[in-house]
């Protein structure tokens, strides 16, 4: 503005000076030479007078320049800002009709155009609303159906972002019973656009997806993969995963996402385990008792010349063992009556498929080439391929590290009711103590899952393992005897491969994944947490504290009003009456609320993988920063400030308060000065800003942050 003003001034000044000089020159030329001499003399003697003239011209032109800049340039720019706002953000906004007559006329024309534009938008909106209503009805039908399903269903894109889930899935995965908000808040939440991997181990899902893609690449129709996982301190879940393909028709065979149907099988598995142990105990107990009875009886028959003491000893053994056997059987039948038939079982797969999976795993994870020999394609086994691959890879890693085994081979053969799966290497056998240690080593000890050991996995599969060697061929092998299973039923090919339900419009399927660097991602595609805090005062460094945190999420350009974060915080200090007048949170409302040490980590979880947005956010960030040491959580990700973005968009406006912005963008203000109310208003304003920023070429997060930095307000410090 200053530069423009200066330029105008200089131009006016030069023009005036030039005109005066021109008049004098013309006068000089027109006069006969004696008078010319007089004119020069007159001018030379009146330098003082000339100086004053020049000064007056300077002042007049300065005034003129400021008038022109003020009246024309500023008004034209304000008009331009208004027009952009109408075009991209708030069609009911009208340009101010002020300034010179021409500009007033222009403003009126713009407003006329705006009125037409608004009307036509309204018509469009009505037509869209009608079309959308049908779509909504379908969606509601789907939602109702999902809600009534007995299974927990989660739909994700290939990056694990959740784009649909039902209430049962939420209850199962987060263990929330709905009642206790503050306790549930610390658990990683389930929400649209959030990552499923915060709840279920990424490896297990990736494994299942790899399996599905592999099976599909072999021509299997709509394969379903079974996975087992433990969550939240050991609860065992079984999931069935299937790929969702070709949503947009753009790449019809590339998977766009997956559906996961989950059920809690912890109880079933435990029951199965108990039953299995009971059965083993009964069988082994009976065998032992019978062995003693039979041997004693045979001794009595075969050696009739026994002395009385011996006879008595053997008959006592018979009585004692028979009694023991009776007790054992009574006990077992009593326990067995309580059990039901279990449906718990892992996936049935061809042994050769298991081997090819194990080979791929070992080659990629351990870096040892693994071949296959003597594979019998008719054998089927019942196996949880993820855990089996984990423990077998672990064995391979041990062989590589400790025995420098450079090459492995698999083979499989039937032996009675088992498939003998061998992991073969060339070289010596390993000492039995070492093998025993490997059997009990934890392969993976996740925070939530029970440690996975070969022994655990074997027991789960009712398998037995040992190792052998063949001196002639100098080969050794680990042998895993897996019970043979019946072949899996092939899924009948569905007739409607091309047809899709009409309620398929999950935009998240096509969203760019986190593969793109966050800074370069389009502002429209980023997930945001828009938040606000209420505090005891304005000076965090002087002991002011947070009393309330409110936040909403924006995912895929939509404000998710159903996924709120709202938490009152006990500040552990007095709340001054002056601040109560602003936020209305009275000290008694804060009694029994969590302190910042609990509330902030919960908020941090809520914000996971999103960009923070706030109005005058530097203020809130300062409070969060000061709590970093106490709470152990840091908010170090990128942050956007609607106040700064407003300064970027409306350079000539001084007022960038939340109220002014709400009015400018036509956003209804509800619950001003509650944290969550302000967060919602800020979020709506921010959504309106995104297209306006795009018009100015600010499209990515990086650009938005750079533009914010440039504005004067960026230097404000609290």
């Amino acid at each position, binding site marked *: 503005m200053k530069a423009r003003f200066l330029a105008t001034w200089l131009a006016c000044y030069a023009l005036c000076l030039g005109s005066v000089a021109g008049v004098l020159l013309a006068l000089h030329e027109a006069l006969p030479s004696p008078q010319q001499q007089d004119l020069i003399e007159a001018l030379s003697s009146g330098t003082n007078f000339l100086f004053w003239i020049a000064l007056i011209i300077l002042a007049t032109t300065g005034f003129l320049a400021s008038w022109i800049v003020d009246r024309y340039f500023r008004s034209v720019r304000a008009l331009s800002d208004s027009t952009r706002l109408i075009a991209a953000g708030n069609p009911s906004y009208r340009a101010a009709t002020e300034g010179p007559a021409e500009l007033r006329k222009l403003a009126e024309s713009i407003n006329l155009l705006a009125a037409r534009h608004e009307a036509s938008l309204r018509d469009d909106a009505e037509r869209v609303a009608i079309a959308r209503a049908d779509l909504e009805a379908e969606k509601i039908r789907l939602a109702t159906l999902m809600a009534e399903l007995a299974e927990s269903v989660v739909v994700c894109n290939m990056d694990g972002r959740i784009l649909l889930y039902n209430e049962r899935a939420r209850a199962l995965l987060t263990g929330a019973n709905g009642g206790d908000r503050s306790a549930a808040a610390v658990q990683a939440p389930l929400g649209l656009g959030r990552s499923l991997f915060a709840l279920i181990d990424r490896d297990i899902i990736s494994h299942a997806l790899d399996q599905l893609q592999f099976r599909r690449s072999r021509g299997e129709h709509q394969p379903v993969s079974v996975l087992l996982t433990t969550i939240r301190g050991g609860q065992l879940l079984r999931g069935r995963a299937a790929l969702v393909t070709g949503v947009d028709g753009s790449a019809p065979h590339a998977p766009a996402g997956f559906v996961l149907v989950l059920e809690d099988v912890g109880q079933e598995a435990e029951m199965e385990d108990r039953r299995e142990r009971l059965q083993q105990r009964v069988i082994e107990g009976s065998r032992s008792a019978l062995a003693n009875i039979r041997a004693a009886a045979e001794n009595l028959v*075969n050696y009739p010349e026994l002395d009385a003491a*011996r006879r008595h000893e053997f008959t006592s053994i018979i009585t004692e063992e028979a009694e023991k056997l009776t007790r054992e059987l009574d006990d077992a039948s009593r326990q067995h009556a309580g059990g039901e038939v279990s449906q718990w079982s892992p996936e049935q797969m061809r042994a050769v498929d298991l081997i090819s999976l194990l080979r791929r795993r070992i080659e990629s994870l351990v870096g040892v080439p693994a071949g296959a020999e003597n594979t019998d394609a008719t054998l089927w086994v019942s196996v949880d391929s993820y855990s089996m691959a984990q423990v077998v890879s672990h064995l391979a890693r041990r062989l590589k590290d400790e025995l420098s085994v450079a090459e492995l081979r698999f083979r499989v053969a039937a032996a009675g009711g088992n498939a003998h799966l061998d992991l073969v290497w060339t070289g010596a056998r390993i000492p*039995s103590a070492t093998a025993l240690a490997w059997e009990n080593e934890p392969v993976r000890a996740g925070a939530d899952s029970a440690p996975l050991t070969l022994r655990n996995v074997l027991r789960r599969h009712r398998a037995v393992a040992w190792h052998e060697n063949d001196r002639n061929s100098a080969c050794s092998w680990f042998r895993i005897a897996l019970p043979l299973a019946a072949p899996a039923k092939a899924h009948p090919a569905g007739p409607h491969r091309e047809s899709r339900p009409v309620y398929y419009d999950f935009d998240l399927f096509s969203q760019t994944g986190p593969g793109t660097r966050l800074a370069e991602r389009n502002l429209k595609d980023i997930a945001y947490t828009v938040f606000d805090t209420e505090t005891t005062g304005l000076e965090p460094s002087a002991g002011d504290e947070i009393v309330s945190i409110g936040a909403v999420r924006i995912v895929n350009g939509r404000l998710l009003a159903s996924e709120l974060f709202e938490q009152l915080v006990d500040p552990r200090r007095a709340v001054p009456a002056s601040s109560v007048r602003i936020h209305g949170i009275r000290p008694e409302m804060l009694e029994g609320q969590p302190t910042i040490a609990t509330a902030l980590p919960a908020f941090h979880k809520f914000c996971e993988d999103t960009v923070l947005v706030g109005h005058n956010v530097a203020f809130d960030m300062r409070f969060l920063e000061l709590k970093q040491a106490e709470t152990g959580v840091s908010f170090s990700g990128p942050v956007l400030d609607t106040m700064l973005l407003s300064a970027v968009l409306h350079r000539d406006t001084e007022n960038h308060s939340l109220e002014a912005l709400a009015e400018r963008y036509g956003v209804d203000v509800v619950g001003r000065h509650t944290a969550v109310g302000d967060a919602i208003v800020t979020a709506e304003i921010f959504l309106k800003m995104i297209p306006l920023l795009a018009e100015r070429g600010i499209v990515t997060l990086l650009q938005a942050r750079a533009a914010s930095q440039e504005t004067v307000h960026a230097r404000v410090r609290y």
Partner: protein
Amino acid sequence: MNKRILIADDEPNIVTLLEFLMQQSGYDIRSASNGEDALRAVSEYHPHLVLLDVMMPLRNGYEVCQTMRESPEFDDVKIIMLTAKGREAEMAKGLASGADAYVTKPFATKELVETVKRLLEP
């Protein structure tokens, strides 16, 4: 001189019965009630044959068997696994651990005595 047999089982009744049977067949007997004892007895007593239970405290029969087979000193000691574990895979594991015979309980006394004789007097 009589051949020596070690009976390793943690259950006293079966030990009594096996002792009687083996004495009747003319063998010298020593017994052990857990895996550690069994291994100690093997190196002290130098039996010609071990009747080995699988489910024993401290070290199980598979381990005892493997440990014996790893030491060339006991290469010619015969091992009969005598156990209530009757699944195919367990039997395969027992033989792979180095046992010469795997007898599942309950067994016929005559057959057991014959198996012992066959292993000791080829």
